[in-house]
């Protein structure tokens, strides 16, 4: 495994109108690892990863200062093509959001949109993405069925396959298991660990057991500030911050 930095935030500040959400964040996220960002509700963790694919751009009163460096390039730079950025930094949402289309069309949506492939080549991309999302075996005979006929856990893996289909470098997962049952959660968690071979995985969770199970690096965010960040083992066994310790031991959160 390489040890390079994939994403780095430099003095990142973010506010919605007058509400400050992220305060002077400096963290560097390593390639090909799972990085978990945990913290109580409202601490800004979802907002943070939505900065990485500039999804916060959709919110009119959002103001950002500082830099987010992806592969040496500030993503807020005027030269950056936001479409290209979002292709490179994929995202899976809290609630599974498959499009009301067939399973096949859900996965083919991105590649078609970007003119990446059609015909046989598109079939190959769809198959590979579904295999990488550990869903192929379950749906290979019903690719033309509506995606809405799948169970919640399958829908979420479909959304992961949809994200993989445009060949991103980074995958952001925003509490991907919060709407799922334990069995489906276990599948997604093992999938995250597999995905780090080829991708940089960043997962937001308010569930610290989940963070402990899947992450190599763990960050603890509290009221918009980075309280703790380091190797998972270090953070869980020997937190440097009293608040982190309280969170991990379940005293709040």
């Amino acid at each position: 495994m390489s040890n390079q930095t994939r994403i780095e935030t430099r003095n990142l500040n973010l506010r919605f109108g007058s509400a400050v959400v992220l305060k002077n964040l400096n963290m560097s996220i390593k390639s090909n690892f799972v990085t978990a960002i945990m913290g109580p509700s409202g601490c800004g963790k979802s907002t943070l990863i939505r900065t990485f694919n500039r999804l916060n751009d959709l919110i009119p009163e959002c103001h950002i200062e500082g830099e987010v460096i992806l592969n040496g390039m500030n993503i807020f730079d005027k030269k950056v093509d936001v479409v290209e950025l979002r292709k490179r930094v994929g995202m899976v949402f809290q609630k599974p959001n498959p499009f009301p289309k067939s399973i096949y069309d859900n996965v083919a949506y991105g590649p078609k949109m970007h003119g990446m492939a059609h015909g046989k080549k598109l079939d190959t991309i769809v198959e590979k993405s579904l295999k990488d999302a550990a869903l192929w075996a379950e749906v290979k005979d019903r690719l033309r069925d509506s995606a809405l006929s799948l169970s919640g856990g399958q829908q979420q893996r479909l959304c992961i396959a949809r994200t993989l289909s445009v060949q991103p470098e980074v995958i952001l997962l925003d509490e991907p298991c919060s709407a799922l049952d334990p069995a489906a959660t276990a599948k997604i968690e093992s999938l995250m660990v597999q995905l780090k071979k080829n991708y940089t995985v960043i997962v937001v969770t308010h569930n610290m057991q989940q963070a402990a199970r899947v992450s190599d690096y763990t960050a603890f965010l509290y009221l918009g500030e980075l309280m703790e960040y380091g190797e998972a083992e270090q953070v869980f066994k020997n937190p440097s911050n009293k608040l982190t310790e309280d969170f991990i031991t379940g005293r709040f959160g």
Partner: protein
Amino acid sequence: MKRQIREAIIEKGLFLAASASIIIVMLIIIFMFAEGIRALNFDFLFGMEWWPSGEKFGIIPTVVSTFIIGLGALGIAIIIGIPCAIFLSEYSRDPIRSIIKSSVEMLVGIPSIVLGFFGLVVLVPLIRYNIGGLGESILAGWIILSIMTLPHIISISEDAMRAVPNSFREGSIALGSTTWQTTKALIIPNAKSGIFASIVLGMGNAIGETMAVLMVIGNPNIPWIPQSILDQVRVLTSTIVIEISYAIWGSMHQYSLFALGIVLFAVVSVLNLISRLIIKEEIRKRW
């Protein structure tokens, strides 16, 4: 005991008020059919000539003119209204959005007579001196009617598009789609029945509209099938308004005008019913 009696009286009274609409609709239908049914025959429905003093009452030219006026106005309203709805739903933010929305709502509030008057004193001369013909024409009818239909098309299709869940938009944008790609691939396909309902409803409005159209389409003495968009025409509504005042009481002429009313009522009801059904279906399959 006293309380129960009072409650019962109130309930009956409210029911009576609620029944008023049924009674009124029934009365109107009965009255219209009683008067019009005598004129509803083959020559009426398929006749090419409408000439009251010659006892000829064929409605084909009037019906054709009505549909030409309605469809043309609808076409203009669709060309402007659907893009406007897309802009409001997918592209605009406040304050632009609320400014446009409130002006669309103001458009609904303009009394049709005022719009007709505007058409008569502004639009008609404009056409007469710049394009040709008498000015009072199909073209003027199209423009005035499309202004009246526009707000309905805009607001119903915008509602349909905004009802598409935001999670679809986010999912699509996060894959690197542009707003237009998202609109084309997700928003319009999921809102299409609502958009279609708005169009059908718009057609119903356009056909049933009377006052504004009447003032700008010229209404020649003999209804005919027009040859050019600069021709004057007569539609169902304008024919009734113009002729009812001099139709002799109890004559075939009068019955025929009521029969025109029946045809108009039937067409508009069917269009409203279709759009109602589409909207109902749409609500049923909501996520």
